[in-house]
Protein backbone atom coordinates (compact mmCIF):
# COMPACT_ATOMS: atom_id res chain seq x y z
CA UNK A 1 0.00 0.00 0.00
CA UNK A 2 2.73 2.44 1.04
CA UNK A 3 4.84 1.35 -1.92
CA UNK A 4 1.89 1.95 -4.18
CA UNK A 5 1.21 5.42 -2.78
CA UNK A 6 4.90 6.21 -3.13
CA UNK A 7 4.82 5.02 -6.74
CA UNK A 8 1.81 7.20 -7.55
CA UNK A 9 3.47 10.15 -5.79
CA UNK A 10 6.67 9.78 -7.80
CA UNK A 11 4.67 9.44 -11.02
CA UNK A 12 2.66 12.59 -10.29
CA UNK A 13 5.88 14.41 -9.40
CA UNK A 14 7.54 13.41 -12.67
CA UNK A 15 4.46 14.37 -14.69
CA UNK A 16 4.22 17.75 -12.95
CA UNK A 17 7.94 18.49 -13.27
CA UNK A 18 8.16 17.19 -16.84
CA UNK A 19 8.77 20.61 -18.47
CA UNK A 20 11.97 20.87 -16.39
CA UNK A 21 13.13 17.43 -17.58
CA UNK A 22 12.30 17.43 -21.27
CA UNK A 23 12.02 19.60 -24.32
CA UNK A 24 8.98 21.28 -25.78
CA UNK A 25 7.90 18.39 -28.03
CA UNK A 26 7.82 15.65 -25.35
CA UNK A 27 5.96 18.06 -23.06
CA UNK A 28 3.35 18.69 -25.73
CA UNK A 29 3.00 14.93 -26.21
CA UNK A 30 2.53 14.41 -22.49
CA UNK A 31 -0.12 17.13 -22.39
CA UNK A 32 -1.96 15.54 -25.30
CA UNK A 33 -1.81 12.17 -23.54
CA UNK A 34 -3.23 13.66 -20.34
CA UNK A 35 -6.13 15.33 -22.15
CA UNK A 36 -6.96 12.33 -24.33
CA UNK A 37 -6.53 10.14 -21.27
CA UNK A 38 -9.20 12.07 -19.39
CA UNK A 39 -11.45 11.92 -22.44
CA UNK A 40 -10.94 8.16 -22.80
CA UNK A 41 -11.50 7.60 -19.07
CA UNK A 42 -14.79 9.47 -19.22
CA UNK A 43 -15.80 7.10 -22.02
CA UNK A 44 -14.63 4.12 -19.96
CA UNK A 45 -17.04 5.23 -17.23
CA UNK A 46 -19.85 4.67 -19.73
CA UNK A 47 -18.45 1.60 -21.49
CA UNK A 48 -16.58 -0.28 -18.84
CA UNK A 49 -18.78 0.47 -15.85
CA UNK A 50 -22.29 1.23 -17.09
CA UNK A 51 -22.06 -1.01 -20.17
CA UNK A 52 -23.01 1.79 -22.57
CA UNK A 53 -20.72 1.65 -25.61
CA UNK A 54 -21.02 5.15 -27.02
CA UNK A 55 -19.78 5.97 -30.49
CA UNK A 56 -20.67 9.63 -30.10
CA UNK A 57 -18.61 10.73 -27.15
CA UNK A 58 -16.96 13.30 -29.41
CA UNK A 59 -20.17 15.36 -29.12
CA UNK A 60 -19.17 16.36 -25.58
CA UNK A 61 -15.49 16.78 -26.37
CA UNK A 62 -16.46 19.12 -29.18
CA UNK A 63 -19.08 21.04 -27.21
CA UNK A 64 -16.62 21.59 -24.38
CA UNK A 65 -13.99 22.70 -26.87
CA UNK A 66 -16.26 25.09 -28.77
CA UNK A 67 -17.90 26.62 -25.68
CA UNK A 68 -14.47 27.25 -24.16
CA UNK A 69 -13.18 28.73 -27.41
CA UNK A 70 -16.09 31.15 -27.84
CA UNK A 71 -16.24 32.11 -24.17
CA UNK A 72 -12.50 32.59 -23.79
CA UNK A 73 -12.48 34.93 -26.77
CA UNK A 74 -15.04 37.06 -24.95
CA UNK A 75 -13.57 36.96 -21.45
CA UNK A 76 -10.49 34.87 -20.75
CA UNK A 77 -11.18 33.71 -17.20
CA UNK A 78 -11.83 30.42 -15.40
CA UNK A 79 -15.58 30.80 -15.74
CA UNK A 80 -15.16 30.63 -19.52
CA UNK A 81 -12.49 27.95 -19.40
CA UNK A 82 -14.12 25.49 -17.01
CA UNK A 83 -17.55 26.36 -15.66
CA UNK A 84 -19.37 27.27 -18.86
CA UNK A 85 -18.09 24.29 -20.87
CA UNK A 86 -19.05 21.94 -18.04
CA UNK A 87 -22.55 23.39 -17.70
CA UNK A 88 -23.28 23.39 -21.42
CA UNK A 89 -21.99 19.83 -21.93
CA UNK A 90 -24.06 18.69 -18.97
CA UNK A 91 -27.20 20.13 -20.55
CA UNK A 92 -26.35 18.51 -23.89
CA UNK A 93 -25.62 15.20 -22.15
CA UNK A 94 -29.01 15.27 -20.43
CA UNK A 95 -30.75 15.83 -23.77
CA UNK A 96 -28.75 13.26 -25.76
CA UNK A 97 -28.77 10.79 -22.89
CA UNK A 98 -32.52 11.11 -22.42
CA UNK A 99 -33.06 10.06 -26.05
CA UNK A 100 -30.34 7.40 -26.20
CA UNK A 101 -30.25 5.42 -22.97
CA UNK A 102 -33.52 3.65 -23.69
CA UNK A 103 -31.80 1.82 -26.53
CA UNK A 104 -28.90 -0.57 -26.16
CA UNK A 105 -26.19 -2.36 -28.10
CA UNK A 106 -25.84 -1.44 -31.74
CA UNK A 107 -28.78 0.95 -31.58
CA UNK A 108 -27.20 2.90 -28.76
CA UNK A 109 -23.94 3.00 -30.72
CA UNK A 110 -25.64 4.31 -33.85
CA UNK A 111 -27.87 6.80 -32.07
CA UNK A 112 -24.99 8.39 -30.16
CA UNK A 113 -23.04 8.43 -33.43
CA UNK A 114 -25.95 10.22 -35.10
CA UNK A 115 -26.08 12.92 -32.44
CA UNK A 116 -22.36 13.60 -32.56
CA UNK A 117 -22.40 13.76 -36.37
CA UNK A 118 -25.25 16.28 -36.21
CA UNK A 119 -23.00 18.54 -34.16
CA UNK A 120 -20.18 17.95 -36.62
CA UNK A 121 -22.38 18.88 -39.55
CA UNK A 122 -23.69 21.95 -37.74
CA UNK A 123 -20.22 23.19 -36.78
CA UNK A 124 -18.93 22.45 -40.26
CA UNK A 125 -21.66 24.37 -42.05
CA UNK A 126 -22.21 27.41 -39.82
CA UNK A 127 -20.23 30.60 -40.11
CA UNK A 128 -20.62 31.74 -36.49
CA UNK A 129 -18.66 28.64 -35.44
CA UNK A 130 -16.01 29.33 -38.06
CA UNK A 131 -17.38 26.62 -40.39
CA UNK A 132 -14.66 24.20 -41.50
CA UNK A 133 -11.79 26.31 -40.13
CA UNK A 134 -13.22 26.27 -36.61
CA UNK A 135 -12.40 28.89 -33.98
CA UNK A 136 -8.78 30.01 -33.71
CA UNK A 137 -6.70 32.55 -31.85
CA UNK A 138 -8.23 31.52 -28.53
CA UNK A 139 -6.48 33.09 -25.51
CA UNK A 140 -5.75 31.05 -22.39
CA UNK A 141 -7.59 32.08 -19.22
CA UNK A 142 -5.97 34.56 -16.84
CA UNK A 143 -5.57 33.43 -13.25
CA UNK A 144 -4.63 35.71 -10.36
CA UNK A 145 -0.85 35.74 -10.26
CA UNK A 146 -0.46 33.08 -12.93
CA UNK A 147 0.18 33.75 -16.57
CA UNK A 148 -1.07 30.65 -18.38
CA UNK A 149 0.37 31.88 -21.65
CA UNK A 150 3.67 30.71 -20.12
CA UNK A 151 4.11 27.03 -20.82
CA UNK A 152 5.23 25.96 -17.31
CA UNK A 153 2.26 27.60 -15.64
CA UNK A 154 -0.10 26.07 -18.17
CA UNK A 155 1.43 22.65 -17.62
CA UNK A 156 0.83 22.83 -13.86
CA UNK A 157 -2.72 24.08 -14.41
CA UNK A 158 -3.33 21.17 -16.79
CA UNK A 159 -1.84 18.58 -14.45
CA UNK A 160 -3.96 19.82 -11.53
CA UNK A 161 -7.18 19.73 -13.55
CA UNK A 162 -6.42 16.32 -15.00
CA UNK A 163 -5.63 15.09 -11.50
CA UNK A 164 -8.95 16.42 -10.24
CA UNK A 165 -10.85 14.74 -13.08
CA UNK A 166 -9.06 11.49 -12.32
CA UNK A 167 -9.94 11.77 -8.65
CA UNK A 168 -13.60 12.43 -9.41
CA UNK A 169 -13.82 9.46 -11.78
CA UNK A 170 -12.01 7.24 -9.32
CA UNK A 171 -14.38 8.26 -6.52
CA UNK A 172 -17.41 7.72 -8.77
CA UNK A 173 -16.53 4.17 -9.78
CA UNK A 174 -15.64 3.22 -6.20
CA UNK A 175 -18.80 4.70 -4.72
CA UNK A 176 -22.03 2.74 -4.16
CA UNK A 177 -23.23 4.51 -7.32
CA UNK A 178 -20.35 2.93 -9.26
CA UNK A 179 -21.26 -0.50 -7.94
CA UNK A 180 -24.83 -0.08 -9.09
CA UNK A 181 -23.49 0.85 -12.54
CA UNK A 182 -21.48 -2.35 -12.65
CA UNK A 183 -24.59 -4.25 -11.64
CA UNK A 184 -26.45 -2.66 -14.55
CA UNK A 185 -23.65 -3.62 -16.92
CA UNK A 186 -23.79 -7.23 -15.74
CA UNK A 187 -27.55 -7.63 -15.66
CA UNK A 188 -29.81 -4.70 -16.31
CA UNK A 189 -33.02 -6.67 -15.88
CA UNK A 190 -32.02 -7.95 -12.47
CA UNK A 191 -31.04 -4.51 -11.20
CA UNK A 192 -34.39 -3.24 -12.35
CA UNK A 193 -36.16 -6.12 -10.59
CA UNK A 194 -34.25 -5.42 -7.39
CA UNK A 195 -35.72 -1.94 -7.51
CA UNK A 196 -33.00 0.33 -8.84
CA UNK A 197 -34.20 3.10 -11.16
CA UNK A 198 -31.88 1.83 -13.87
CA UNK A 199 -32.62 4.52 -16.46
CA UNK A 200 -31.93 7.29 -13.97
CA UNK A 201 -28.60 5.70 -12.98
CA UNK A 202 -27.59 5.37 -16.62
CA UNK A 203 -28.55 8.97 -17.33
CA UNK A 204 -26.53 10.27 -14.38
CA UNK A 205 -23.51 8.23 -15.51
CA UNK A 206 -23.97 9.52 -19.05
CA UNK A 207 -24.04 13.12 -17.82
CA UNK A 208 -20.97 12.70 -15.58
CA UNK A 209 -19.08 11.09 -18.47
CA UNK A 210 -20.24 13.84 -20.81
CA UNK A 211 -19.19 16.64 -18.46
CA UNK A 212 -15.72 15.23 -18.01
CA UNK A 213 -15.40 14.75 -21.77
CA UNK A 214 -16.44 18.41 -22.10
CA UNK A 215 -13.70 19.40 -19.68
CA UNK A 216 -11.21 17.42 -21.77
CA UNK A 217 -12.44 19.24 -24.87
CA UNK A 218 -12.05 22.59 -23.17
CA UNK A 219 -8.49 21.71 -22.12
CA UNK A 220 -7.80 20.60 -25.67
CA UNK A 221 -8.83 24.04 -26.94
CA UNK A 222 -6.66 25.71 -24.31
CA UNK A 223 -3.69 23.55 -25.26
CA UNK A 224 -3.92 24.15 -29.01
CA UNK A 225 -5.54 27.62 -28.87
CA UNK A 226 -7.94 26.47 -31.56
CA UNK A 227 -10.80 24.04 -32.11
CA UNK A 228 -12.06 22.63 -35.41
CA UNK A 229 -15.15 20.61 -36.41
CA UNK A 230 -12.94 17.51 -36.40
CA UNK A 231 -13.34 17.48 -32.62
CA UNK A 232 -16.94 16.38 -33.26
CA UNK A 233 -16.13 13.93 -36.04
CA UNK A 234 -16.79 10.24 -35.45
CA UNK A 235 -13.09 9.42 -35.72
CA UNK A 236 -12.58 11.38 -32.48
CA UNK A 237 -15.06 9.06 -30.75
CA UNK A 238 -13.47 6.12 -32.54
CA UNK A 239 -9.98 6.96 -31.31
CA UNK A 240 -11.18 7.35 -27.72
CA UNK A 241 -12.95 4.00 -28.06
CA UNK A 242 -9.71 2.42 -29.30
CA UNK A 243 -7.77 3.93 -26.39
CA UNK A 244 -10.22 2.45 -23.90
CA UNK A 245 -10.12 -0.98 -25.52
CA UNK A 246 -6.34 -0.97 -25.90
CA UNK A 247 -5.94 0.00 -22.27
CA UNK A 248 -8.51 -2.46 -21.02
CA UNK A 249 -12.20 -1.65 -20.55
CA UNK A 250 -13.52 -1.15 -17.06
CA UNK A 251 -10.15 -0.35 -15.51
CA UNK A 252 -10.21 3.47 -15.71
CA UNK A 253 -6.44 4.00 -15.47
CA UNK A 254 -6.07 1.57 -18.35
CA UNK A 255 -7.63 4.22 -20.57
CA UNK A 256 -4.85 6.60 -19.64
CA UNK A 257 -2.32 3.92 -20.61
CA UNK A 258 -4.29 3.31 -23.79
CA UNK A 259 -4.16 7.01 -24.63
CA UNK A 260 -0.41 7.04 -23.95
CA UNK A 261 0.15 3.95 -26.10
CA UNK A 262 -1.98 5.32 -28.93
CA UNK A 263 -0.42 8.78 -29.01
CA UNK A 264 3.17 7.61 -28.50
CA UNK A 265 2.79 4.93 -31.14
CA UNK A 266 1.30 7.41 -33.55
CA UNK A 267 3.96 10.08 -33.01
CA UNK A 268 6.93 7.71 -32.75
CA UNK A 269 6.03 5.65 -35.76
CA UNK A 270 5.12 8.68 -37.82
CA UNK A 271 8.49 10.26 -37.11
CA UNK A 272 10.26 7.20 -38.55
CA UNK A 273 7.99 6.23 -41.38
CA UNK A 274 5.00 7.44 -43.32
CA UNK A 275 3.39 4.08 -42.78
CA UNK A 276 2.09 4.79 -39.28
CA UNK A 277 -1.49 3.86 -40.15
CA UNK A 278 -0.37 0.47 -41.34
CA UNK A 279 1.61 -0.17 -38.19
CA UNK A 280 -1.16 1.12 -35.95
CA UNK A 281 -3.68 -1.08 -37.76
CA UNK A 282 -1.46 -4.15 -37.46
CA UNK A 283 -0.92 -3.38 -33.78
CA UNK A 284 -4.68 -3.33 -33.17
CA UNK A 285 -5.15 -6.61 -35.00
CA UNK A 286 -2.33 -8.38 -33.18
CA UNK A 287 -3.52 -6.89 -29.92
CA UNK A 288 -6.99 -8.35 -30.29
CA UNK A 289 -5.67 -11.74 -31.32
CA UNK A 290 -2.97 -12.03 -28.67
CA UNK A 291 -3.75 -9.66 -25.78
CA UNK A 292 -7.55 -9.56 -25.50
CA UNK A 293 -7.61 -7.97 -22.03
CA UNK A 294 -5.88 -4.78 -23.16
CA UNK A 295 -2.69 -3.42 -21.63
CA UNK A 296 -4.00 -3.81 -18.10
CA UNK A 297 -5.02 -7.39 -18.84
CA UNK A 298 -1.55 -8.08 -20.22
CA UNK A 299 0.09 -6.52 -17.17
CA UNK A 300 -2.00 -8.76 -14.98
CA UNK A 301 -0.64 -11.74 -16.85
CA UNK A 302 -3.39 -12.81 -19.22
CA UNK A 303 -1.13 -12.81 -22.25
CA UNK A 304 -1.48 -15.55 -24.81
CA UNK A 305 -3.64 -16.93 -27.56
CA UNK A 306 -7.31 -17.01 -26.65
CA UNK A 307 -8.92 -20.43 -26.43
Amino acid at each position, binding site marked *: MIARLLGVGVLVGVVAAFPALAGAYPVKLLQEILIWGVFAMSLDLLMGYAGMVSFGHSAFFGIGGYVAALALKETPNLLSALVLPAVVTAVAAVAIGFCSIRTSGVYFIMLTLA*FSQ*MFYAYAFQNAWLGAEDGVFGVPRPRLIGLDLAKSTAFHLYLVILVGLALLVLWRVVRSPFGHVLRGIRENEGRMEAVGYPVQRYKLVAFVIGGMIAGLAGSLYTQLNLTITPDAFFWTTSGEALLMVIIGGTGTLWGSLLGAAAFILLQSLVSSYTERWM*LILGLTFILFVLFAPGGIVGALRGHVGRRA
Partner: protein
Amino acid sequence: MVLLSDVFAQALNGLAYGVLLFLLSVGLTLIFGMLDIVNLAHGSFYMLGAYAGLVTMALTGNYWLAMLVAPLAVGVVGALMERVCLRPLYRGSPLDQVLLTFGFIYLFEDLVKWIWGGKIRSIPPPEVFAGSVKLLGVTVPSYRLFMIAFGLVMAVALWLLIERTRLGALIRAGVFDAEMAAGMGVNIDRVFTGVFAFGAALGGLSGVIAGPIQSASPPMGAGILIPALIVVVVGGLGSLKGSLVGSLIIGQAETFGKAWLPGSSMVIIYVVMALVVLLRPQGLFGRALK
Protein backbone atom coordinates in the same frame (compact mmCIF):
# COMPACT_ATOMS: atom_id res chain seq x y z
CA MET B 1 -40.24 27.43 -58.06
CA VAL B 2 -38.95 23.92 -58.23
CA LEU B 3 -38.82 22.53 -61.72
CA LEU B 4 -40.16 19.06 -62.22
CA SER B 5 -37.18 18.20 -64.41
CA ASP B 6 -34.86 19.18 -61.53
CA VAL B 7 -36.71 16.87 -59.22
CA PHE B 8 -36.43 14.10 -61.78
CA ALA B 9 -32.70 14.64 -62.27
CA GLN B 10 -32.08 14.65 -58.51
CA ALA B 11 -34.21 11.56 -58.02
CA LEU B 12 -32.13 9.70 -60.61
CA ASN B 13 -28.90 10.78 -58.89
CA GLY B 14 -30.34 9.65 -55.59
CA LEU B 15 -31.35 6.34 -57.10
CA ALA B 16 -27.84 5.75 -58.44
CA TYR B 17 -26.33 6.53 -55.04
CA GLY B 18 -28.96 4.36 -53.37
CA VAL B 19 -28.04 1.42 -55.60
CA LEU B 20 -24.44 1.81 -54.53
CA LEU B 21 -25.41 1.85 -50.87
CA PHE B 22 -27.61 -1.18 -51.43
CA LEU B 23 -24.82 -3.35 -52.85
CA LEU B 24 -22.61 -2.31 -49.97
CA SER B 25 -25.16 -2.64 -47.18
CA VAL B 26 -26.46 -6.07 -48.22
CA GLY B 27 -23.16 -7.62 -47.24
CA LEU B 28 -22.98 -5.57 -44.08
CA THR B 29 -26.48 -6.49 -42.99
CA LEU B 30 -26.08 -10.22 -43.74
CA ILE B 31 -22.78 -10.35 -41.86
CA PHE B 32 -24.41 -8.43 -39.05
CA GLY B 33 -27.49 -10.62 -38.92
CA MET B 34 -25.64 -13.89 -39.10
CA LEU B 35 -22.25 -13.40 -37.49
CA ASP B 36 -23.34 -10.73 -35.03
CA ILE B 37 -20.34 -8.69 -36.09
CA VAL B 38 -20.25 -5.00 -36.90
CA ASN B 39 -17.64 -5.15 -39.64
CA LEU B 40 -16.22 -1.63 -39.60
CA ALA B 41 -13.84 -2.65 -42.39
CA HIS B 42 -16.74 -3.19 -44.78
CA GLY B 43 -16.13 0.21 -46.36
CA SER B 44 -12.57 -0.94 -47.02
CA PHE B 45 -13.93 -3.72 -49.25
CA TYR B 46 -15.59 -0.99 -51.28
CA MET B 47 -12.26 0.79 -51.61
CA LEU B 48 -10.33 -2.40 -52.39
CA GLY B 49 -12.92 -3.19 -55.07
CA ALA B 50 -12.39 0.17 -56.71
CA TYR B 51 -8.62 -0.34 -56.79
CA ALA B 52 -8.92 -3.93 -58.02
CA GLY B 53 -11.08 -2.46 -60.77
CA LEU B 54 -8.47 0.20 -61.54
CA VAL B 55 -5.74 -2.43 -61.87
CA THR B 56 -7.83 -4.62 -64.12
CA MET B 57 -8.69 -1.61 -66.27
CA ALA B 58 -5.02 -0.60 -66.48
CA LEU B 59 -4.05 -4.10 -67.60
CA THR B 60 -6.87 -4.93 -69.97
CA GLY B 61 -8.93 -1.79 -70.49
CA ASN B 62 -12.01 -3.94 -70.12
CA TYR B 63 -14.59 -2.59 -67.67
CA TRP B 64 -16.68 -5.76 -67.69
CA LEU B 65 -13.66 -7.81 -66.75
CA ALA B 66 -13.04 -5.36 -63.87
CA MET B 67 -16.59 -5.95 -62.68
CA LEU B 68 -15.79 -9.66 -62.53
CA VAL B 69 -12.25 -9.55 -61.11
CA ALA B 70 -12.83 -7.01 -58.34
CA PRO B 71 -15.54 -8.94 -56.44
CA LEU B 72 -13.58 -12.17 -56.78
CA ALA B 73 -10.39 -10.61 -55.44
CA VAL B 74 -12.15 -8.82 -52.59
CA GLY B 75 -14.14 -11.97 -51.81
CA VAL B 76 -10.88 -13.88 -51.32
CA VAL B 77 -9.57 -11.13 -49.03
CA GLY B 78 -12.84 -11.34 -47.05
CA ALA B 79 -12.66 -15.11 -46.75
CA LEU B 80 -9.08 -14.94 -45.47
CA MET B 81 -9.96 -12.21 -43.00
CA GLU B 82 -12.87 -14.21 -41.63
CA ARG B 83 -10.91 -17.48 -41.38
CA VAL B 84 -7.76 -16.09 -39.81
CA CYS B 85 -8.86 -13.15 -37.69
CA LEU B 86 -12.59 -13.06 -37.04
CA ARG B 87 -13.22 -16.75 -36.35
CA PRO B 88 -11.45 -16.71 -32.95
CA LEU B 89 -13.56 -13.73 -31.89
CA TYR B 90 -17.11 -15.00 -32.33
CA ARG B 91 -17.52 -15.84 -28.69
CA GLY B 92 -15.45 -12.89 -27.49
CA SER B 93 -16.47 -9.38 -26.60
CA PRO B 94 -17.93 -7.20 -29.36
CA LEU B 95 -15.35 -4.57 -28.44
CA ASP B 96 -12.59 -6.88 -29.66
CA GLN B 97 -14.38 -7.05 -33.00
CA VAL B 98 -14.56 -3.26 -33.09
CA LEU B 99 -10.83 -2.93 -32.43
CA LEU B 100 -9.95 -5.65 -34.93
CA THR B 101 -12.07 -4.37 -37.80
CA PHE B 102 -10.96 -0.80 -37.06
CA GLY B 103 -7.41 -2.07 -37.35
CA PHE B 104 -8.24 -3.42 -40.79
CA ILE B 105 -9.54 0.00 -41.90
CA TYR B 106 -6.11 1.48 -41.14
CA LEU B 107 -4.29 -1.49 -42.61
CA PHE B 108 -6.15 -1.58 -45.91
CA GLU B 109 -6.17 2.19 -46.34
CA ASP B 110 -2.45 2.52 -45.77
CA LEU B 111 -1.58 -0.52 -47.89
CA VAL B 112 -3.48 0.95 -50.81
CA LYS B 113 -1.85 4.35 -50.28
CA TRP B 114 1.54 2.62 -50.19
CA ILE B 115 1.00 0.71 -53.41
CA TRP B 116 -0.96 3.21 -55.51
CA GLY B 117 -0.31 6.54 -53.77
CA GLY B 118 -2.87 8.87 -52.25
CA LYS B 119 -3.97 10.47 -55.52
CA ILE B 120 -7.62 10.55 -56.50
CA ARG B 121 -8.18 8.40 -59.58
CA SER B 122 -11.21 7.71 -61.62
CA ILE B 123 -12.34 4.65 -63.50
CA PRO B 124 -13.62 5.51 -66.98
CA PRO B 125 -17.08 4.13 -67.66
CA PRO B 126 -17.42 1.35 -70.26
CA GLU B 127 -17.55 2.78 -73.78
CA VAL B 128 -21.15 1.75 -74.40
CA PHE B 129 -22.25 3.94 -71.50
CA ALA B 130 -19.79 6.81 -71.94
CA GLY B 131 -22.38 9.16 -73.44
CA SER B 132 -25.59 10.54 -72.13
CA VAL B 133 -29.24 10.28 -73.08
CA LYS B 134 -32.16 12.68 -72.95
CA LEU B 135 -34.88 11.46 -70.64
CA LEU B 136 -38.03 13.53 -70.00
CA GLY B 137 -36.15 16.66 -70.96
CA VAL B 138 -33.19 15.89 -68.69
CA THR B 139 -29.74 14.96 -69.90
CA VAL B 140 -28.66 11.90 -67.94
CA PRO B 141 -25.26 10.20 -68.20
CA SER B 142 -26.17 6.79 -69.54
CA TYR B 143 -23.77 5.18 -67.06
CA ARG B 144 -26.07 6.27 -64.23
CA LEU B 145 -28.99 4.56 -65.90
CA PHE B 146 -26.88 1.44 -66.27
CA MET B 147 -26.02 1.60 -62.55
CA ILE B 148 -29.66 1.88 -61.57
CA ALA B 149 -30.71 -0.96 -63.85
CA PHE B 150 -27.83 -3.13 -62.67
CA GLY B 151 -28.67 -2.46 -59.02
CA LEU B 152 -32.29 -3.38 -59.49
CA VAL B 153 -31.35 -6.57 -61.33
CA MET B 154 -28.95 -7.41 -58.48
CA ALA B 155 -31.70 -6.78 -55.95
CA VAL B 156 -34.01 -9.24 -57.71
CA ALA B 157 -31.19 -11.78 -58.14
CA LEU B 158 -30.24 -11.54 -54.46
CA TRP B 159 -33.87 -11.88 -53.43
CA LEU B 160 -34.21 -15.02 -55.58
CA LEU B 161 -30.94 -16.38 -54.21
CA ILE B 162 -31.87 -15.84 -50.60
CA GLU B 163 -35.57 -16.65 -50.70
CA ARG B 164 -35.74 -19.30 -53.40
CA THR B 165 -32.62 -21.46 -53.28
CA ARG B 166 -31.25 -24.05 -50.90
CA LEU B 167 -28.17 -21.93 -50.32
CA GLY B 168 -30.42 -19.02 -49.45
CA ALA B 169 -32.30 -21.17 -46.98
CA LEU B 170 -28.99 -21.99 -45.28
CA ILE B 171 -28.16 -18.30 -45.08
CA ARG B 172 -31.56 -17.40 -43.68
CA ALA B 173 -31.29 -20.21 -41.14
CA GLY B 174 -27.90 -18.85 -40.11
CA VAL B 175 -29.23 -15.32 -39.73
CA PHE B 176 -32.25 -16.48 -37.77
CA ASP B 177 -30.45 -18.79 -35.34
CA ALA B 178 -26.93 -19.92 -36.14
CA GLU B 179 -26.71 -22.35 -33.22
CA MET B 180 -29.94 -24.09 -34.15
CA ALA B 181 -28.85 -24.34 -37.78
CA ALA B 182 -25.61 -25.95 -36.65
CA GLY B 183 -27.63 -28.35 -34.52
CA MET B 184 -29.64 -29.34 -37.59
CA GLY B 185 -26.46 -30.49 -39.27
CA VAL B 186 -25.53 -27.39 -41.25
CA ASN B 187 -21.78 -26.84 -41.53
CA ILE B 188 -22.21 -23.37 -40.11
CA ASP B 189 -18.49 -22.53 -40.18
CA ARG B 190 -18.46 -22.86 -43.93
CA VAL B 191 -21.67 -20.83 -44.26
CA PHE B 192 -20.12 -18.08 -42.11
CA THR B 193 -17.02 -17.88 -44.27
CA GLY B 194 -19.15 -18.01 -47.39
CA VAL B 195 -21.45 -15.21 -46.26
CA PHE B 196 -18.55 -13.04 -45.17
CA ALA B 197 -16.75 -13.56 -48.48
CA PHE B 198 -19.98 -12.97 -50.40
CA GLY B 199 -20.64 -9.75 -48.52
CA ALA B 200 -17.07 -8.64 -49.12
CA ALA B 201 -17.42 -9.45 -52.83
CA LEU B 202 -20.58 -7.34 -53.08
CA GLY B 203 -18.70 -4.53 -51.34
CA GLY B 204 -15.91 -4.89 -53.89
CA LEU B 205 -18.43 -4.89 -56.73
CA SER B 206 -19.98 -1.66 -55.46
CA GLY B 207 -16.49 -0.12 -55.46
CA VAL B 208 -16.04 -0.85 -59.17
CA ILE B 209 -19.54 0.37 -59.96
CA ALA B 210 -18.87 3.59 -58.02
CA GLY B 211 -15.56 4.19 -59.82
CA PRO B 212 -16.88 6.09 -62.85
CA ILE B 213 -19.02 8.49 -60.81
CA GLN B 214 -17.24 8.83 -57.47
CA SER B 215 -13.53 8.30 -58.30
CA ALA B 216 -11.22 6.23 -56.13
CA SER B 217 -8.98 7.34 -53.27
CA PRO B 218 -7.70 5.55 -50.15
CA PRO B 219 -10.04 7.29 -47.64
CA MET B 220 -13.16 6.42 -49.67
CA GLY B 221 -13.68 3.27 -47.61
CA ALA B 222 -13.88 5.03 -44.27
CA GLY B 223 -16.06 7.69 -45.90
CA ILE B 224 -18.79 5.35 -47.12
CA LEU B 225 -18.84 3.24 -43.93
CA ILE B 226 -21.11 5.51 -41.94
CA PRO B 227 -23.82 5.91 -44.63
CA ALA B 228 -23.78 2.12 -45.10
CA LEU B 229 -24.17 1.53 -41.36
CA ILE B 230 -27.02 4.03 -41.32
CA VAL B 231 -28.77 2.12 -44.11
CA VAL B 232 -28.44 -1.11 -42.14
CA VAL B 233 -29.91 0.43 -39.00
CA VAL B 234 -32.71 2.21 -40.86
CA GLY B 235 -33.65 -0.91 -42.81
CA GLY B 236 -33.33 -3.34 -39.92
CA LEU B 237 -30.41 -5.62 -39.08
CA GLY B 238 -30.16 -8.72 -41.24
CA SER B 239 -33.00 -7.76 -43.57
CA LEU B 240 -32.47 -7.81 -47.34
CA LYS B 241 -35.66 -5.86 -48.01
CA GLY B 242 -34.65 -3.41 -45.29
CA SER B 243 -31.29 -2.77 -46.86
CA LEU B 244 -32.92 -2.09 -50.25
CA VAL B 245 -35.56 0.28 -48.88
CA GLY B 246 -33.07 1.86 -46.47
CA SER B 247 -30.59 2.48 -49.30
CA LEU B 248 -33.20 4.11 -51.48
CA ILE B 249 -34.36 6.36 -48.62
CA ILE B 250 -30.85 7.39 -47.60
CA GLY B 251 -29.82 7.83 -51.24
CA GLN B 252 -32.69 10.23 -51.88
CA ALA B 253 -32.33 12.03 -48.53
CA GLU B 254 -28.65 12.68 -49.17
CA THR B 255 -29.08 13.80 -52.77
CA PHE B 256 -32.08 16.05 -52.23
CA GLY B 257 -30.50 17.44 -49.07
CA LYS B 258 -27.40 18.47 -51.01
CA ALA B 259 -29.48 20.13 -53.72
CA TRP B 260 -32.12 21.87 -51.66
CA LEU B 261 -30.72 22.39 -48.16
CA PRO B 262 -27.05 23.03 -48.80
CA GLY B 263 -26.68 24.67 -45.39
CA SER B 264 -27.70 21.57 -43.47
CA SER B 265 -27.30 18.78 -46.01
CA MET B 266 -24.87 16.80 -43.89
CA VAL B 267 -27.30 16.46 -41.01
CA ILE B 268 -30.21 14.95 -42.90
CA ILE B 269 -29.25 11.28 -43.01
CA TYR B 270 -28.48 11.37 -39.29
CA VAL B 271 -31.82 12.93 -38.55
CA VAL B 272 -33.53 10.21 -40.59
CA MET B 273 -31.64 7.52 -38.69
CA ALA B 274 -32.28 9.07 -35.27
CA LEU B 275 -36.00 9.29 -36.02
CA VAL B 276 -36.15 5.66 -37.13
CA VAL B 277 -34.23 4.41 -34.09
CA LEU B 278 -36.39 6.44 -31.71
CA LEU B 279 -39.75 5.58 -33.29
CA ARG B 280 -39.08 2.08 -34.57
CA PRO B 281 -35.92 0.75 -32.92
CA GLN B 282 -35.80 -2.52 -34.87
CA GLY B 283 -35.59 -0.61 -38.16
CA LEU B 284 -38.18 -0.54 -40.91
CA PHE B 285 -38.03 -4.25 -41.71
CA GLY B 286 -36.15 -5.70 -38.77
CA ARG B 287 -37.47 -8.35 -36.46
CA ALA B 288 -38.94 -6.95 -33.23
CA LEU B 289 -36.36 -6.68 -30.50
CA LYS B 290 -36.35 -9.36 -27.86
